[in-house]
């Protein structure tokens, strides 16, 4: 008996700890529940926390007036950047919390697993999803009207990076592509490989690695041995920090270090320091120095970029990442869709979100078809470079706020 008590006690302790912060599972009629699965811990924590802040801010502002006389409640779950955990969180939100829609998220690997889990349900949950960039997701799930994709697809990323590399003088000749070895990295790297080769670059290697590994010196030593002009990697925030630190340790000096979106977080800059972040190039969808007007329809929720950034910075004492504003706008779109539908009827809400056509602090908010998806918003991408602790926009030229620092300044004098 004593043993049984001990086993049960330990199991309860573990379960209690695991479900800490999970919230009550009983449906309440005075609130509209939205599910949000983010990698709040683990290698995607940086952008996930940015996304969470954006959603929390949107939730508070939406609830000042409410939606259909109710409050919106966002229930956050942590996927730990693990698709299996993401699926469990998704199932819990659907079956226990009875969420009306899913909003937010980061990482194609998780997004793919989540949407796979949606397939089991009829009707499928509505998703206003910020974390899906892989074309395989677009091909597999894009035809579903209830999925609203609020993030550029990977071909927008890689074509923008290709065009940026082509714009450099002297033009780089060789590229080493490194990528985390799950769906997100593999899919992006394959497309980058194709685009770069078509443009005449020589891809000297396309190497996978484990995201979140404690040591990336083998990868970097291999890359250094090949002496590429460009070291381009597609992975997560933890990897970006390690590549920067260990690239410096190994004295690896390609002519350009370039990566994707996770390089743009304040977390990255703070972790590696201004000196070490200097001249690293990344991709972004939006930057706080953009200049979009307020929405005519909903200026209280979708103010001008300047006003939105001021509000966000005042609340959180930090600069917003594009995941902050993307998740904010996604939640506002979902709330306004529900409001316009006048009920929680799935078809009416989907139709109402499809009709949204307004300005937002992130740019024009309107869902339109992409290559394979029926509902997709925000297709533009920009290249930035860390310069003295700030992100200078370099490409496309018409949005540029600075000139590129190229070639990459060697590590040794830093």
């Amino acid at each position, binding site marked *: 008996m004593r*043993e049984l008590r*001990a*086993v049960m006690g*330990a*199991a309860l*302790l*573990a379960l209690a*700890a*695991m479900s*800490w*912060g999970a919230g009550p599972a009983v449906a309440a009629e005075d609130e509209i529940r939205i599910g949000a699965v983010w*990698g*709040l*811990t*683990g290698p995607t*924590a*940086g952008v*996930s*926390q940015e996304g969470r802040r954006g959603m929390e801010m949107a939730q508070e502002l939406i609830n000042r007036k409410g939606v259909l006389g109710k409050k919106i409640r966002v229930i956050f779950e*942590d996927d*730990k950047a693990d698709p299996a955990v993401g699926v469990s969180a998704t199932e819990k939100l659907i079956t226990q919390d009875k969420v009306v829609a899913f909003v937010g998220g980061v990482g194609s690997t998780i997004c793919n697993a989540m949407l796979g889990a949606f397939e089991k349900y009829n009707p499928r949950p509505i998703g206003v999803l910020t974390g899906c960039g892989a074309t395989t997701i677009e091909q597999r799930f894009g035809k579903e009207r209830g999925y609203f994709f609020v993030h550029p697809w990977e071909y927008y990323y890689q074509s923008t990076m290709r065009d940026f590399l082509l714009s450099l003088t002297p033009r780089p000749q060789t590229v080493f592509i*490194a990528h985390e*070895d799950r769906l997100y990295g593999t899919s992006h790297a394959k497309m980058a490989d194709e685009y770069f080769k078509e443009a005449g670059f020589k891809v000297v*290697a396309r*190497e*996978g*690695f*484990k995201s*979140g*590994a*404690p*040591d*990336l*010196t*083998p*990868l970097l*030593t*291999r890359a250094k*041995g090949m002496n590429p002009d460009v070291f381009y990697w597609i992975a997560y*925030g*933890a990897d970006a*920090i*390690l590549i920067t*630190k*260990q690239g*410096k*340790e*190994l*004295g690896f000096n390609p002519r350009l270090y370039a990566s994707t979106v996770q390089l743009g977080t304040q*977390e990255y800059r*703070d*972790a*590696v*320091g201004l000196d*070490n972040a200097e001249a690293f190039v990344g991709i972004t969808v939006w930057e706080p120095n953009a200049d979009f007007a307020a929405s005519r329809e909903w200026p209280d929720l979708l103010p001008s970029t300047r006003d939105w950034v001021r509000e966000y910075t005042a609340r959180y004492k930090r600069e917003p990442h594009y995941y902050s504003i993307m998740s904010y706008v996604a939640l506002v779109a979902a709330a306004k869709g529900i409001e316009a539908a006048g009920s929680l009827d799935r078809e009416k809400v989907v139709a109402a979100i499809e009709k949204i056509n307004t300005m937002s602090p992130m740019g024009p908010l309107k869902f339109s078809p992409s290559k394979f998806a029926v509902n997709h918003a925000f297709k533009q991408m920009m290249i930035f470079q860390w310069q003295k602790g700030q992100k200078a926009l370099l490409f496309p030229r018409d949005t540029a706020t600075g000139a590129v620092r190229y070639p990459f300044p060697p*590590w*040794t004098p830093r």
Partner: protein
Amino acid sequence: MSAAMLAQVTANGLSLAGLYALVAVGLTLVFGVMRILNFAHGEFVMIGAYLTYWLFALWGVDPLLSFALVLALMALLGALVQVTLVTRVLAAPHLNQILLTFGIAVTLQNLALLLWTGDLRAIKVWYASTALSVAGVSLSLGRTVGILIAATLTVGLYLLLFRTEYGRALRAVAQDPDAALVMGIPIQRVYVLAMAIGAAYAGAAGVVASVSMFTYPLLGFLFGLKAFCVVILGGLGSVFGAVLASLFLGLVESFVGTLIPQGGSWAEAISFIVLLLVLLVRPRGILGLE
């Protein structure tokens, strides 16, 4: 492969091995003395890393200076966990012990998340990623210091185990706790000492990780899993087996990751394949207890 490349890959492997050894020796010591697999050991690494980080972030204490303090605090934490929790399940079945230490791990992870969020945090000290170039081989000063710390602490543990009364008591309890009790050795105190040392070594790994990498609430899981692999390969309970296994795994991962195409994806898998093969041939590990 050039000699410089060979030396570089070896240096990378040794650096990784040093970190693995720091994590693993504490885990294997605790198992050797108490026959308990401490699933919270990785979380001790994480707490050590956060202690180092906050001492630096709040009061600007350099990790080289805070090192001794972190070790002492971690030893205290280990002793506290032993006295208040682990002691109660020493005579219980292994399942109870596993559930308890797993529960401690999850609690510590969630506490870290609650207190410090999931943000990745890194310490920026001048030597963290400063490179030393020796005969064409780049060595990070921070990681070199880490290797030296690992080597010093391992030698220190050897001296403690084989040159002191405490060490003799630890080894006696590891060999036969009943006989040790009959001989007048206070085995409960020895257990507390073992857990305190184990936690202190995990804390040392945390100091090195916070400087050379970063810290976040799941850091412990990252190292805990690898530490179990090292400890099983080296032989449960064998400190020197853990050191040998750390060297082996560090070097294998470095060579595979650097020299084989897609090695970054394969390195870990190959480590586990080697582990399986070793266990098939020698189930008790390299230097494991019978």
